[in-house]
């Protein structure tokens, strides 16, 4: 067991003020050699802010930081890197326009006479990525790869940089089980090597699986630090939320499947090079869960349904009419809604207020001329802020200042405001804290009960199981299985993903 002498990085009294909001209030924290330290807290508790301060991305408004007993004050992330602190920040912060190997080694490329040795860099990049089981063209631009791969690159980069401390801010949010396993293996090796590892996540299972010690933040205060062995799940949740989580374990969804009217049926919908033609029927009052590995084409299927990409094969049948949805606008006018998976890039309007972010889809549907006035907007926004418990200082706050989970709720509110009949949620709980997670799951069920049809894409099988009336599984860009009723269990889904049995889709 690590002792106090093993402290590598220690911070005392960290305070951070954004405008008139204090994000951190006198937080003390210390990280020890050979220890995995989980940093937990609700969305907006201040975890990422703390990390950014520890690594020089933000300057604190109060407090001190010591690295191996020496006071340090980083003004740039570069200084932290140079002293052996490697960090993966929450949003994938890489350079999409540069090659994978540049992303891994920028600033550290092997060079002679000031010239970068490209082939050596590439070779190093290949070796590094091989540890993660990734064999990709490291000379291709990063943007040509999926979020998952980008996440792995970011992790690999941080690991390479971390001589003493490795900080991972929600590294597993866009990884699937298999990749998470790989990552954990690597973390264990690093731990054995004596690194201090800081790990932020909202998956409590992972906390218990991996970490040695836990620090919980709430509202910018440190609630406490405990060895993980001294905690159980409920205790941990209570520390985070300051109350117990009310559990609604719905179990498998009741009510007979195939019950409601068919809202929409998809016939041979496909796009060359994107999704193979697929058939699907979606009924009112039903949640269709979509499972599959990363890159299995789930997002692509959703984009086709919503008209972001235009299908070159097949059509949707809706209201007895067969039609190809050619634009998001058409989809919206049909009463569809879509929460995209990449919240930052495709979801939020960062500089606009929470109010504007909530009313925008509704306003887009009304057209530019029939404007909602400010009071109407405030009322709508206020209702949803309350209904979804969106934590924001006011409806006028720019949405980019909200924590990730709250941003997700804002986007959900945006679509609910349009009173949709069909909603596609792509990874709605990614990066969301346990409390909000439970709320969103509950909300999905409630929406279903209200008669909405939902398609929910998720990589978390437990979650899918908890709200789906039906689960379809995708593999290699094709719809390969459909599970109903008692078949909806994590293990059956895993089997279907792996391609064993249950092939009841023709």
């Amino acid at each position, binding site marked *: 067991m690590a002792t106090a002498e093993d402290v590598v990085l220690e911070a005392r009294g960290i305070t951070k003020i954004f*405008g008139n909001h204090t994000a951190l209030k006198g937080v003390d924290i210390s990280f020890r050699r050979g220890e995995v330290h989980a940093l937990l807290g609700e969305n907006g508790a201040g975890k990422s802010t703390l990390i950014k301060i520890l690594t020089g991305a933000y300057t604190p*408004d*109060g407090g001190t930081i010591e690295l191996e007993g020496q006071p340090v004050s980083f003004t740039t992330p570069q200084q932290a890197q140079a002293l052996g602190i490697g960090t993966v920040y929450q949003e994938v912060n890489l350079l999409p326009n540069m090659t994978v190997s540049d992303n891994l080694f920028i600033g550290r490329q092997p060079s002679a006479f000031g010239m970068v040795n490209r082939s050596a860099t590439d070779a190093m990049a290949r070796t590094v990525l091989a540890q993660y089981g990734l064999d990709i063209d490291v000379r291709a631009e990063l943007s040509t790869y999926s979020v998952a791969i980008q996440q792995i690159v970011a992790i690999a980069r941080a690991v390479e940089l971390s001589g003493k401390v490795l900080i991972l801010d929600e590294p597993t949010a866009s990884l699937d089980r298999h990749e998470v396993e790989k990552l954990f293996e690597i973390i264990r090796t690093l731990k054995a090597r004596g690194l201090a590892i800081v790990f932020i996540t909202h998956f409590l299972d992972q906390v218990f699986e991996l970490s040695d010690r836990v620090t919980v933040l709430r509202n910018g205060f440190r609630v406490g630090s405990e060895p993980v062995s001294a905690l159980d799940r409920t205790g941990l949740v209570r520390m985070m939320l300051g109350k117990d989580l009310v559990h609604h374990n719905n179990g498998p969804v009741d009510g007979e499947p195939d019950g409601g009217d068919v809202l929409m049926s998809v016939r041979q919908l496909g796009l060359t090079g994107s999704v193979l033609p697929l058939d699907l029927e979606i009924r009112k009052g039903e949640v269709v869960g979509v499972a599959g590995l990363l890159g299995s084409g789930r997002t692509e299927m959703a984009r086709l349904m919503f008209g972001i990409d235009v299908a070159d094969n097949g059509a949707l049948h809706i209201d007895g009419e067969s039609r190809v949805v050619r634009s*998001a606008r058409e989809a919206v*006018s049909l009463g569809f809604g879509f929460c995209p998976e990449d919240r930052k*890039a495709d979801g939020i309007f960062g*500089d*606009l207020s929470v109010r*504007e972010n909530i009313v925008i889809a509704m306003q887009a549907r009304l057209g530019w001329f029939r404007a909602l006035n400010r009071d109407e907007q405030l009322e709508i926004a206020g209702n949803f802020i309350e209904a979804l418990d969106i934590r924001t200082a006011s409806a006028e706050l720019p949405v980019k200042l909200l924590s990730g989970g709250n941003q997700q709720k804002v986007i959900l509110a945006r679509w609910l405001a349009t009173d949709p009949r069909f909603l596609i949620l792509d990874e709605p709980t990614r990066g969301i804290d346990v409390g909000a997670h439970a709320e969103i799951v509950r909300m999905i069920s409630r929406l279903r009960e209200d008669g909405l049809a939902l398609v929910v894409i998720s990589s978390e099988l437990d979650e899918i199981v908890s709200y789906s009336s039906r689960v379809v599984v995708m593999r290699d860009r094709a719809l390969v299985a459909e599970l109903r009723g008692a078949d909806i269990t994590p293990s059956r889904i895993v089997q279907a993903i792996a391609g064993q049995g249950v092939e009841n889709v023709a």
Partner: protein
Amino acid sequence: MKRLQLTEIVRPQLLALACILLLNWFVFPGFFTITWQDGRLFGSLIDVINRGAPVAILAIGMTAIIATRGVDLSVGAVMAVAGAVAATAAVAGQPLVVTLIAALLVGLLCGLWNGSLVAFLGMQPFVATLVLMVAGRGVAQLITEGSIVTFSDPALIFVGTGSLLGLPMPAVIALALMLAAHLVMRRTAMGLFVEAIGTNRSAASYTGLRTRTVILTLYAFGGLCAALAGVIAAADIRGADANNAGLWLELDAILAVVIGGTSLLGGRFSIPMSVLGAVIIQAMNTGILVSGLPPEFNLIVKASVIILILVMQSDRIGEIVARRFARLKLRGKT
């Protein structure tokens, strides 16, 4: 209604304008003198709003374009084209309505051209409008054959030099246009759409906004504004000077928008503030004229003033001040 706070009223722009006016007064004590003469107001301040009107009108059109992360470099050239068209029509004896419609239509077409390149061909606004910036002046010269086409249609001349309620026509037009544009943006959802597109175009299209149509409309409106400014500029000198009308005014217009606080990276915008920016620029220009400084110094004065204004409104400086302040408060508490 939103309660206005002190910090929202005392914008750095107003402060900058006050500083410049004060400076002007310092170099020329008669700066604030306004007299009534021949049924109109007369004085340096009136000159500021009168001369600032064309750039203000350009800025009105440019603001929303910049708010979508675009830019329109062609406005100066479009001014020249519209002026040339108006002059040619006036010389041909067309009535004012026809002249105006013809000129504005040409401006609209230019705007639609720019807008299509940006919205539908996906060209970068800077280069897309660079094309018309270069070629447009050629078109204007083609219309006038390089000479100044002088006209004497009193109705058209009135647009540039007449006055309404004692105020110069160009300023009246600019003011009316500003109000109209502001109302359209803020009383309809257009402003919200523009800001949404400028903040995150991808998210805007996921939301079901017609991003391309909106962008096309904005460029078309920009062309229209440029044409109006061109007509005013031509009417002012009773002739279309295709070679020089609107030359480099695109830079002034962009500057006005930026001084007005709209970011070149898109997002939030304010049309009245852009107009204020145009007034600030013109106040500086008029100040240079009445100061009696040798013309060699014009550019340096201009550059220094711009730098000063930018420093004044730099949010970074505001941030540093705010942080100092917050720390003081913190210390006070403990």
